[in-house]
């Protein structure tokens, strides 16, 4: 368990003030904040790598506020991985192990186990600068896990990766967390990453924690501009993805099924932009489209455009121009059809 009490950190031009967090043992905790919010410094402060002004840091019931970083037992993964360029992958993994009082065979065994866990056994003799981004990330992760940390700190671990690798590494993070039940604090500016991975999410803004809660709580009742703006621009659903009728996939969201394009299966999240949804009075039929019937439950007037909430259920937020809104003569309580392409849904 990680507990941060009234942490204040001076960042030169601004302050982190009264940061209070409690991360349960085995929890995957996300700190979500815009770029430039000092998320890296926050993690460094927890790890003892950045001086703090005041406050306390507790790890599994032990106060570590004044402890040197090497005595805290905190695994750290930087955004750009920070692999030791003068050491092979194997020696990177052994770096932390070498400093533990253990028989040599045991260290070797742990190193091999980690390499296998992350699927990097074939890379052990390689030099870090010959690796791809995804491979480096896995090595950095294995290295951080090598010290059997009480908490693992991940600083934007996916943001330096291309979209495809990102998805792959994200799955990997999820699976490893499931297997090891490793207490993890992961900072990111990416909402979908936060929703996909976080047991709970803390929203950071203006040097403070603005909100802490599950993804559902945060995105459906945001109390920060940063989250609210995102929540407006995405429909986020959680559901079970399974095989569809003709080779595709279907997600079941609270009993409502629609087609999606993905290779992933199981309990996942889906996001859909309001502007990708078409509203009509009659059903539109086309093989690549999902057409669902629902009722308009809410209308938010934004001038040239309007946001309509259509409950099928679940609720879909849809964007319509004022012109089509008036042409269709839409009103609250009216039954409509919403139509969107399977490919417009992002599964993560």
């Amino acid at each position, binding site marked *: 368990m990680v507990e941060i009490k009234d942490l204040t950190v001076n960042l030169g031009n601004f302050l982190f003030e009264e940061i209070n967090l409690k991360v349960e043992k085995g929890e995957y905790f996300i700190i979500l904040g815009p770029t430039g919010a000092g998320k890296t410094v926050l993690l460094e402060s927890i790890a003892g*790598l950045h001086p703090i002004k005041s406050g306390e840091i507790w790890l599994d019931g032990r106060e570590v506020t004044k402890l040197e970083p*090497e005595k805290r037992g905190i695994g750290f993964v930087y955004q750009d991985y920070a692999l*030791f360029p003068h050491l092979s992958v194997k020696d990177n993994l052994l770096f932390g192990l070498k*400093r533990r009082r253990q028989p040599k065979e045991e260290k070797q065994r742990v190193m091999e186990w980690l390499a296998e866990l992350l699927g990097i056994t074939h890379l052990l003799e390689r030099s870090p600068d010959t690796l791809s981004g995804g491979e480096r990330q896995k090595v950095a992760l294995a290295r951080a896990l090598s010290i059997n940390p009480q908490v693992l700190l991940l600083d934007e671990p996916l943001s330096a990766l291309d979209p495809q690798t990102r998805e792959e590494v994200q799955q990997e993070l999820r699976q490893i967390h499931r297997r090891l039940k490793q207490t993890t604090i992961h900072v990111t500016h990416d909402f979908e990453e936060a929703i996909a991975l976080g047991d709970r999410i803390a929203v950071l803004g203006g040097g403070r924690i603005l909100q802490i809660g599950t993804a559902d709580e945060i995105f459906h009742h945001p109390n920060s501009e940063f989250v609210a703006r995102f929540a407006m621009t995405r429909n986020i659903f959680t559901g079970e993805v399974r095989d569809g009728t003709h080779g595709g996939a279907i997600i079941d969201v609270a009993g409502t099924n629609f087609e999606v394009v993905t290779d992933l299966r199981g309990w996942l999240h889906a996001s859909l932009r309001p502007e990708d949804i078409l509203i009509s009075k009659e059903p539109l039929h086309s093989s690549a489209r999902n057409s669902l019937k629902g009722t308009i439950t809410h209308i938010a007037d934004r001038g040239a455009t309007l946001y309509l909430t259509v409950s099928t259920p679940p609720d879909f937020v849809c964007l319509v121009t004022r012109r089509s809104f008036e042409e269709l003569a839409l009103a609250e309580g009216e039954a409509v059809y919403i139509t969107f392409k399977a490919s417009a849904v992002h599964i993560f």
Partner: protein
Amino acid sequence: MIRNIWRWIAQRRLTITFLLLGMVILLFIFIPLAKMIFSSSPSILWDTLLEGEVRSAIWLSLYCALIATAVGLVLGVPLAYFLARHRFPGKRFVEALIDVPIVVPHIATGIALLFVFGKSFLIGRAFDAIGIDFVFAVPGIIIAMLFVSVPFLIDSAKQGFEKVDVRLEKVSRTLGASPWQTFFSVSLPLAKRGIFGGAVMMWARGISEFGAVLVLASYPTIAPILVYDRLEQYGLDYALPVAALLVIICIIIFIVLRSIAYRGERTW
């Protein structure tokens, strides 16, 4: 055809101009050295090498410069690391101070050192009490070389450390390494090229020192002073082979060390 050649030249005017200017300075460096080396016949060079006085002077130069470099490594590398990692008021001043020995005339350096390490002064007396003399003694040669050449090492090592990502050191700490262990297993190995390159420069600069050593310890005789003595007493013909020999030995060692320092680094 001719028009094509003209166009080819016209498109590369900048490169060609710069190459020509560069050639001038390269020849300026190369010709005097080559002429000196090749104006002594190999047999004269060989005879010179067999002279005990010459051999011991060259050996003394190499040896004293090596000791000075070793002292520079022990005292200068920590400073270089400190400067690379910390910001503090007056840092600019400290950095300027380190480079001062490069600009001070070397005769003046010798006099300045004499005023501190001479036996009539406090520090000189203190060393004298433990049996170390600087004036007309090997330690005097070493400190003269150290003074004029250590800036090359500190500057180069500092640049080496600055290139090492601080985050690598931080990660090392989280993995259980103390600050000392981190320095020796991360920072030092990663800055070794800068340190080694600086050490080679320092050593080479030490060997070439003349003025400061002349004031502080013209005896025992180091090679540049031997060359000067012979020039003064017997003329150019006697000075030339010693000078040529010194240059040849220095160039050989310099090339070997540089090739080690820049091993694996592509320049094309």
